[in-house]
Every structure is written in C-alpha cells, then in structure tokens.
C-alpha cells in the first residue's frame, strides 16, 4: 500500500482514518470500507487539529471525514 501521513501514524488510534494506503487509495469509495463514526468529542477535535493544517498543502484534507453534501459559506462565498 502507499504511504501514511506522519500525523496519522502518531494519532491514528484516535480517528482511525490513517490506517494505511495512500490518500487516493484510501479515498476510493468503491473499495474502502466506510470510516468509523466515533462520537463527537475529543477525537473529532483532535482529527481537525491534525487534518486542517493540510488544508492548502499537497496532503490536503481527508475527504472521507466529510459527508457527500457539505454546506460551506463565508461572508463572500456560498
């Protein structure tokens, strides 16, 4: 399989999304099992803390943590 992000290796036990495979491979909806749905709380905050710093880099956000429909808005975008 592909590479793991360093922060997934460190924190993978919390969110369990970085359990192996490259980003693209892990995100294949046709073959990947659905991600677990842990209760909202510290684990989700920890996920954002390690995922959002990749918002604009080559790693990117982990799309599997997002629903198919994401409502986004800011003061000049909707």
């Amino acid at each position, binding site marked *: 399989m592909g590479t793991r992000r360093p922060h997934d290796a460190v924190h993978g036990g919390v969110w369990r*999304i970085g359990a192996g495979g490259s*980003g*693209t491979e*892990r*995100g*294949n*909806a046709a073959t990947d099992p659905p*991600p*677990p*749905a*842990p*209760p*909202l*709380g510290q684990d*989700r*905050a920890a996920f*954002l*803390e390690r995922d*959002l*710093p*990749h*918002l*604009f880099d*080559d*790693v*990117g*956000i*982990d*799309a*599997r*943590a*997002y*629903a*198919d*429909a*994401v*409502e*986004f*808005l*800011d*003061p*000049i*975008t*909707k």
Partner: protein
Amino acid sequence: MRGERGSAAAGEDGNKTHPPSPPPRYSTLAGYKFNIAALRRVFSPTFILRGVRQTGPRELTTRWTMRMRVAALPASIAPALAFTGTSVMRVDAEGKFCYHADTWDAVTNQAYFSAEAAAHVARQVATLARPPAAVAVAAGDLLRKAAKFEVRRFETPLRVASCAAGGGAGFAAFKPLVDYITDRGVAMPTPVLGGGGALRFVRPPAGAPPPPPPPDSGITLADLPAGDYACGAFTGFAGDAAAARAESRLRADLAAAGLSVAPDATPFLAVYNGPDTLLPPARLNEVWLRLQDFDLWA
C-alpha cells in the same frame, strides 16, 4: 493533489481526455474541494490553525489565521492579504462533517453577500502602504485582524538598540543607530520604533549578542516586553501630532472591542518606510500598544 486526498468525487478515473467540468456547487463535497483547490491555486494561502473547541452537541469551532497573496504575481508586488476568524463545523448523524461556516474577525456582517467583507478584501488589495519586502521586519504572529487594528503576538522580548530621541522627530538618534548597525554589516531593520522618548532599531531575534555600543554613542541595548500587541496603522509622514491621533484612535477602537491595554504599556510608533518613500499614502506607520490578558477566543 490539491486539498482532495481521499476523494470520492467524480473525475478521478484518470481519463485525461475529459473536458473540464463546470465548477460544482459548494453544497457538495466536490464543490467544497473545488473551492479549496481554487483558493490554493489563485492565492497560495498559508493557513495556521490556532485551536479547536467543541461548541455544540454536533459542532466544533476552529480559530485560524490565513495569509494569502496572488500566486501569479511576483512576491515583491503581490498584495498581501490576511484574515483571522473562526469556522463553525458541524457533523451529521454518521459523524461526518456536513457544514462549514466561516466568520471573519474584521467584519460584523457575516451574512453572504457581505459588502463589508468585500470592502475589507478590496482595501487590502488596493493599499499602497506595505512593509518593504527587502528588509527584516519585526512582524510578530498575527492573532487577530480586526477592521481597524491587528493583534500580534511576540513570543519573546523584542531586542532593540535604543537611543534617546531628542528633538526633531528622533533625527538626533537616527545617525548613531545607523552607524552602529551598519558598522556591523547588519541591514537596516524595519520597523524603526519610536515612542517613550527613544528611537529603537529591532535586532534579530536570535544569534549572538552584538558588541557593546560605543560608550559615547548614547546607544543602549534593551528588551521590549514580549506579549500581545495591538497595532493600529496609519499612513503618511509620522509626526508627533499624527502619531498622537493614531494612538487616540487605537485606544478608542480597543475599548470598543473590549480589549484592555496593559497599564505599564509604552506606546510605540512603528515606522516602516525611509525618507525615500515620498508618496504619503505609500508610507506605512503603526501605533503599538501592549495588551493585558488578551484572549484569542473572546
């Protein structure tokens, strides 16, 4: 990849012959990722996550700083844009993020389409008063960009070479400081800090201490307190009257925002441009006031 790791979106079949698809709606995951990718391509953003807090049963709020510039323009001329704010992120019943709403610290009307927010962007693009790009700047870490001031954190004391300003807007102190700096081969730093009866050149934050100043130069080495500084910008030639007006405005703006100035704070006047910048709107100055108990989340 551009912000789309783990994508399940259309168009990932590797077929490069497909014509480009129209931009998806932002209410889809594909649209959300398109927005991120477009921002990255056009503005080369730098995103700093300050923290994450749970603010509801299915809701988290993040706080962040984002800096951007137009990627297609040389850094020397590209406008630098900065935003700070929060994002409310909600999850659905499956625990997946389904809602993301940004608020900007600089605007009060957050609702789309906010003319106030658009004007905030336009002002940053259009301003002529920018820090010179070629010299070291004591910038601090931008925590909050409000409409009328910024809050920047200096984690460590600002090391300065200081000289009594005397009269004439500190000109008497300028030459000995320049001689002291340039004799050591150090580039002229910006901003130059006035206020409190002294003129100060900021020294590099790290490295060996410089040699002692000549005994008869009137120069002393000092540390200005670390902390969170409110910075209010104004343009033009920064005489005493203009600086006093800017300080008065900044204090009023801070009071309106519920922020407190440290009782022992010395007001500093930060001047970014040398005398060779003649056009007043291109001359950037700031008043700095150290804050007391600044709460990033308040």
